[in-house]
């Protein structure tokens, strides 16, 4: 008689295909050692399942939401970005003063300065925001 002890685990876990299941059950009815093994296995998994799952003390959502919100804040400027911004301001100022230029050239320079300023205002975060981000290294370190 071929024993079925290698199928006990799958049987206990309800993972044995129907055809094998019938053969298994027929065998166990007739075979005391396999029946004993099956009972021992069932008891073991009952004992394991009786251990209560650990309960959470608090939801993780507030912490997760905080982390996601922190990441959504605009990133601080990198050094190359800061360099480019400074260069743009200097260039704008120089053009604005238009060293010895004609009235047309001055007007053109004023337009360039206005355009540069608008561009900076639109594309970069405000100085307040930048100051807040640069001034809070601890918070950044936590994330």
């Amino acid at each position, binding site marked *: 008689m071929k024993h079925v002890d290698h199928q006990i685990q799958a049987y206990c876990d309800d993972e044995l295909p129907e055809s094998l299941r019938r053969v298994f059950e027929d065998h166990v009815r007739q075979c005391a050692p396999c029946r004993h093994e099956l009972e021992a296995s069932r008891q073991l998994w009952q004992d394991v*399942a009786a251990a*209560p799952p650990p309960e959470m003390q608090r939801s993780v959502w507030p912490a997760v939401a905080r*982390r996601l919100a922190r990441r959504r804040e605009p990133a601080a400027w990198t050094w190359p970005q800061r360099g480019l911004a400074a260069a743009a301001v200097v260039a704008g100022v120089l053009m604005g003063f238009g060293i010895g230029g004609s009235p047309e050239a001055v007007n053109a320079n004023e337009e360039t300065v206005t355009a540069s300023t608008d561009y900076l205002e639109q594309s970069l975060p405000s100085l307040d925001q930048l100051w807040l981000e640069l001034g809070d290294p601890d918070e950044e370190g936590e994330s």
Partner: protein
Amino acid sequence: MCHDDDSLMQRTAAGDERAFQQLVARWEQPVFAFLMHMLGSVEEAEDLAQDTFVKVYDQAPRYRPEGRFRSWLLRIAGNKARSVLRRRKILRWVPFDLARHDQASSGDDPGRSLERRQTTSQVQAAVAELPERQRAAVVLKRFQGLSYKEIAEVLGTTVPGVESLLQRAAAALRQRLQAVDSRPAREEKS
């Protein structure tokens, strides 16, 4: 339920934070319980549960809605637990604090409650001493109710591989629990 998870993930990918909050509310307890069983520390389990959900959020645009959210989620949690265990170079799992977590028995007869606690803690200690992958397979099957196929997805193995892990875990658990049962009573008291 699987389809609900998939649709919540799709909404999350589209930037719907309320959908993501629902997903977290639905799955935080199973994720926490899994991590607790794997790590044995409340603090680490909470931290890794957070990390797991942040990763879920990041991966939402790439998630394929095939009704396998649970195994996908637990695989992320399992990978996080594995990296912590590697970092710790753990030899033994730290059993979790039963007094803080075994709240179900608070209204029972004190004698029976104590007996059950002892049995429970022996079983938990025996599970805790299993090798990592056997322990994960036991927890996923017995506490999370995953099928062999789902466990195989979480652990990156095959269905026969899962069956083998559980067979070896069962043999080890029986051996350990029999050893505990056969110890003299005075040894248990100490």
